[in-house]
């Protein structure tokens, strides 16, 4: 059935269709409508679940871990500072192997205070044992969330997942969404069943006690093993998803890369803009292409390498400032993926704090990359949309 939904409501629909049994959510802009909508449909009986009106995101994740271990599919959603506050429990959830799926509405973390889109919140959590799916549109939000439950709960994976959607660009923009029927989702996603560790007085065990130096490495390795082997499961689940719902899900999506001279790698809602620019530049005879990374954790090294192995010039767009690092995270990963290949890889940072990633900037990036490819210029503007004189953006009167 087609519905007009924004990204947040798509996430809610997905959680409802996944029959989430315990919800613990705390409102934060731009995630708030997820917690509102969830509480509403639980209250009016549309969704059969317990809603815990928690007093913080830290508690939200704590409650989800408790609920997940006690045999209920648990759900929460957050954003920005909320995710930062959750940080400690993010590590706990993955370490304890609680297969929680959480939509994260991407927003910059204060300070500077900003309500708007940036990937800093989820990027700061990227190495903590969660899978991360970055979505391009509201249909993606619904589809990848439903698929994420099946991947996360796979008994060999048992790893939580974040489904990332860009704040406001997706969370608050209405799009036409194909919402699958409950029966179709029930066929695809089995009932939540506890097969790993659990809290059950009839079959008791003690979960998450101290692990000594003698086997901490091995327990941690189990998580790495799950990440390393997740792609097999992800591929299968995506195939099943396509059979069941008729929509193809991708680990990475290529767009006109085959004969491209230069390729831009990006994630999230900006990929729509990039596709648009690629089309225009192709009409001008410029051979540009794009890769959209959907699964950022685990990082699809092999998939990226396969597509880019013969490319000479590659740009990577990060919606995240990486302070003090040589390259921002997506670029770092692409460079690592392309190890051994003969490619000139350039990092681009932009779209911070909600600034629009507009076609002009994307075109500028492609033109720079093409110049580098042709050898006509080596100009590289890594903060692509930076205004002039940024150091003077605040001038105040002071007693000195």
């Amino acid at each position, binding site marked *: 059935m087609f519905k007009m939904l924004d990204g947040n409501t798509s996430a809610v629909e997905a959680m409802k269709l996944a029959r989430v049994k315990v919800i613990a959510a705390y409102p934060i802009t731009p995630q708030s409508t997820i917690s509102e909508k969830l509480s509403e449909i639980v209250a009016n009986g549309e969704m059969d679940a317990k809603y815990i009106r928690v007093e913080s995101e830290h508690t939200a994740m704590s409650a989800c871990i408790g609920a997940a271990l006690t045999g209920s599919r648990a759900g929460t959603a957050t954003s920005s500072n909320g995710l930062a506050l959750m940080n400690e429990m993010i590590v706990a959830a993955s370490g*304890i192997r609680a297969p929680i799926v959480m939509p994260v509405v991407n927003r910059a973390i204060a300070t500077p205070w900003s309500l708007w889109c940036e990937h800093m919140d989820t990027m700061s959590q990227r190495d903590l044992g969660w899978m991360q799916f970055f979505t391009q549109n509201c249909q993606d939000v619904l589809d990848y969330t439903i698929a994420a439950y099946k991947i996360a709960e796979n008994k060999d994976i048992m790893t939580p997942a974040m489904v990332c959607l860009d704040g406001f660009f997706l969370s608050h923009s209405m799009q036409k969404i194909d919402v699958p029927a409950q029966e179709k989702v029930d066929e695809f996603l089995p009932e939540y069943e506890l097969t*790993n560790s659990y809290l059950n007085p009839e079959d008791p065990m003690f979960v*998450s*006690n101290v692990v000594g130096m003698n086997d901490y490495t091995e*327990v941690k390795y*189990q998580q790495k093993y799950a990440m390393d082997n997740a792609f097999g499961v992800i591929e299968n689940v995506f195939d099943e998803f396509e059979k069941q719902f008729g929509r193809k899900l991708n680990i990475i999506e290529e767009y006109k890369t085959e004969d491209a001279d230069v390729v831009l790698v990006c994630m999230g809602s900006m990929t729509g803009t990039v596709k648009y620019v690629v089309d225009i530049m192709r009409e001008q005879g410029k051979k540009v292409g794009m890769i959209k990374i959907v699964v950022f954790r685990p990082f699809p090294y092999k998939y990226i390498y396969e597509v880019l192995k013969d490319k000479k010039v590659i740009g990577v767009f990060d919606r995240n400032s990486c302070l003090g690092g040589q390259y921002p995270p997506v670029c770092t990963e692409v460079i690592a993926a392309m190890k051994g290949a003969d490619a000139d890889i350039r990092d681009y940072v932009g779209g911070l704090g909600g600034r629009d990633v507009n076609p002009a900037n994307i075109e500028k990036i492609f033109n720079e990359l093409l110049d580098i490819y042709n050898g006509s210029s080596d100009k590289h503007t890594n903060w692509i949309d930076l205004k002039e004189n940024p150091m003077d953006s605040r001038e105040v009167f002071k007693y000195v």
Partner: protein
Amino acid sequence: MQKQQEKHTKQLKKCRVLGPVATKFTGGNTGSWRLERPVVDFDACIKCGTCAMYCPTDVIEIDKNAKECVKIDYYYCKGCGICAKECPKKCISIVPERSEE
């Protein structure tokens, strides 16, 4: 209903569990920490059970019919001395470990 039946047919089986989990119920030989040990004067004991009630390690048992009416499991007893202190008859003495008395 189906679930209930499943429960009845479920059997104990060794399963792989990922992540930190403990299912071996055991304890250490905490008696080896002991520097002093409680010794009971059975003749003076009134078998009230105060020592057993307050023992943090729960290793004292009262057997009203036995001559040695207070049994202390020295494998675990840490020698804290609470039993001696709380005994209303003061019939438990604390003696240095490896002494005669």
